[in-house]
């Protein structure tokens, strides 16, 4: 009950009841007043008439005649009879139904409404007093107590109305509480659960589209968004822990070793250069993570401008063309005219670039990569990067797709894991998705984005057939070799040649390849991709 008293439903019901009662009283009070005044006037008028008639009798028949008339009338004992009294000049009663002149009534003609004592009871009476010739006092009055039941009935009526109103109010309050506040309680419990850290909860929704449902829907969408951001933050923390610890550990041991062994100057400088490479690697990972976080917060949508996605894709193809030629891969653009969207050209370029870069890593010499931008009929743009590399075996797909999902995926490297994660984020911020499918053979990565981004962001969708991190070891070795060999020759280096490679500097640029291509193809492969920073 205490809870009920504090609930807003009670406050609401109480307020309505109080308002109803006030209105009722405001309505009834003038009514009662008018009624009361009219009644009193009518009574007074009756008394006056009576007194006049008696005075008339006095004038015609004298004091004895009036006296007899009064005695006769009193003797008839009519119920509700008036108070009648004829007194002489000393106020000594001569006839009537009062034993003596009431002490409270003054001996002067007039109309009075006074408290008196009638047969021992305190009451109130209305009097009309006439003074007749010969200084006789005639008193005609009426006991007001006779009207008390009428007033009582009125007050009872008012009281009953108030009671009904109150009960209806409380009952109504309970009904409102049941209908509405139970749902508010539901929301309350859900939110409490979320505050405790259980993000699986969502606000209960009912059929229909009332205000509470609409509100719940909006809040649920907000919670989805917050949860994703939260995942993003967690992923970033995980990635930092996982990806940064390795190069930091390496850097630390390098410096510590340097400090302990104090080698020759030449070796010391080489080690310092190596340390700078380590730091650069950390910075690179860090920048990629920060950028991802920046995109994920949706901040970049403030930078949306009209942009032709086809131009962006064509430029990206041009940019990667020499790298593809070097590897002996055909890279071509296929498009059907402009594709105008509202978006961020820098992010789009980076996303398409990442997809091409990824395809390039997994396509062998003689292969082909096709970039295509198409306008779909439903006001969406489809950007596809397809390669004919080894693709992913069907058995691996669920695993890969799970890995790619933003829990583990960001454990990848700026090279791959974060690369594709970034593509997914870019697609998301453009109100779209990244889908990874089969190109038979090869991988077919498709970004489907809406031409005009607006409204609530859809959740990231990772479809089956995700490219992800795992491809064949040959391809991975190819990646490493391509990076290590740098601009000189990519295609020639075989799988094993770079399997144990640790850190190579090509033209002042770090190519760090770490890990083992060995019996455990998948693990090693993934490992390799994770560590490869070029």
């Amino acid at each position, binding site marked *: 009950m205490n809870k009920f008293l504090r609930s807003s439903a009670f406050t609401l019901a109480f307020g309505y009841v109080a308002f109803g009662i006030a209105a009722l009283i405001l309505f009834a009070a003038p009514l009662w007043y008018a009624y009361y005044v009219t009644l009193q006037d009518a009574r007074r008028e009756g008394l006056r008439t009576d007194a006049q008639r008696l005075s008339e009798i006095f004038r015609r028949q004298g004091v004895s005649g009036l006296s007899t008339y009064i005695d006769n009338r009193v003797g008839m004992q009519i119920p509700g009879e008036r108070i009648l009294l004829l007194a002489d000049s000393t106020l000594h009663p001569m006839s009537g139904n009062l034993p003596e002149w009431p002490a409270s009534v003054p001996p002067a003609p007039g109309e009075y409404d006074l408290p008196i004592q009638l047969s021992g009871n305190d009451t109130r009476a209305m009097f009309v007093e006439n003074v007749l010739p010969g200084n006789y006092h005639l008193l005609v009055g009426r006991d007001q107590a006779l009207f008390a039941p009428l007033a009582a009935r009125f007050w009872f009526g008012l009281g009953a109305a108030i009671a009904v109103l109150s009960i209806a109010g409380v009952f109504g309050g309970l009904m409102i509480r049941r209908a509405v506040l139970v749902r508010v309680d539901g929301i309350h419990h859900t939110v409490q659960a979320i505050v405790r850290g259980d993000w699986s909860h969502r606000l209960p929704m009912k059929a229909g589209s009332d205000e509470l449902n609409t509100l719940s829907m909006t809040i649920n969408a907000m919670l989805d968004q917050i949860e994703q951001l939260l995942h993003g933050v967690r992923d970033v923390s995980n990635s930092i822990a996982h990806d940064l610890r390795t190069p930091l550990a390496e850097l630390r041991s390098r410096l510590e070793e340097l400090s302990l062994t104090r080698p020759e100057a030449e070796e010391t400088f080489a080690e310092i*250069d190596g340390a*700078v490479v380590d*730091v*650069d690697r950390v*910075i*690179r990972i860090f*920048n*990629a993570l*920060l*950028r991802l976080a*920046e995109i994920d917060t949706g*901040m*970049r949508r*403030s*930078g949306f401008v009209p942009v032709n996605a086809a131009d962006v894709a064509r*430029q990206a193809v*041009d*940019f*990667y063309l*020499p*790298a593809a030629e*070097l590897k002996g891969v055909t890279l071509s653009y296929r498009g059907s005219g402009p594709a105008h969207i509202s978006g961020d050209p*820098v992010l789009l*370029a*980076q996303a398409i*670039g*990442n997809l091409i*870069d990824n395809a*390039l890593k997994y396509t062998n010499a003689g292969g082909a990569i096709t970039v295509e931008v198409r306008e779909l009929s439903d006001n969406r743009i489809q950007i596809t990067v397809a390669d004919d590399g080894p693709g992913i075996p069907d058995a691996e797909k669920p695993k890969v797709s799970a890995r790619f999902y933003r829990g583990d995926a960001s454990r990848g490297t*700026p*090279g791959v894991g974060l*690369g594709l994660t970034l593509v997914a984020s870019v697609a998301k911020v453009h109100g779209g998705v990244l889908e990874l499918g089969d190109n038979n053979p090869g991988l077919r990565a498709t970004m489907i984005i809406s031409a005009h981004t607006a409204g609530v962001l859809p959740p990231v969708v990772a479809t089956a057939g995700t490219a992800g991190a795992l491809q064949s070891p040959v391809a991975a070795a190819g990646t490493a070799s391509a*990076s290590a060999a*740098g*601009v000189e020759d990519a295609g020639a280096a075989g799988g094993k040649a770079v399997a144990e490679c640790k850190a190579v500097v*090509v*033209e*002042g*640029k770090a*190519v760090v390849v770490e890990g083992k291509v060995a019996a455990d193809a998948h693990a090693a492969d993934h490992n390799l991709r994770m560590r490869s*920073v*070029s």
Partner: protein
Amino acid sequence: MKVLLVEDNERVTRFVVKGLQEAGHVADHADNGRDGMFLAASEPYDVIIMDRMLPGQIDGLAIIEALRKSGNRTPILILSALSDVDERIKGLKSGGDDYLTKPFAFGELLARLDALNRRIQGSGTQTSLRVGDLHVDLLSRKAARGTRAIALQPQEFKLLEYLMRHAGQVVTRTMLLENVWDYHFDPQTNVVDVHISKLRQKIESDSERPLLRTVRNAGYMLTADE
């Protein structure tokens, strides 16, 4: 060139000042906003390096805005740990000419300072560029080495034009990405190197003197000097 460094971190200051001096430049230094503001307004500098978050009430961007309002057109490079694109835009809008995120490589900083310094000096409209016997006509968009005509793709021409405009200066990969391709992100792979090596093959035949050099830990430099 004469450089003013406004930076409160001692180690970064030492690193930059020493580097600049070794490269043959004069470097002044202020470790708070007020001194920085005073020096920038009273002394003629070729380039100013401005940190964004400074002690002493005045923040880097406020100094830049104040300098620009008073008509000071000295090129300013903003040095900041704030890497968001929005922050970058804010910095350039306030009147900065370039934006470099901490942590940075000294080579990158020096190359950018050089570029800023040159931008002011050689800002006239040119119709042709020449480095040694390498010649580029900006109107007909044709390139030649001596009498040998060089066929270039539009993108290669743009890359060569940028290198020639900055002849004798180190240009970093990031500078090339930003200015030739307008890519303000890290493409992860060494695509820029591939572009450069392809261009190098075209402008340097076996018998010709090399012009396009690789500068270790920094980038590239196009120069006719030995």
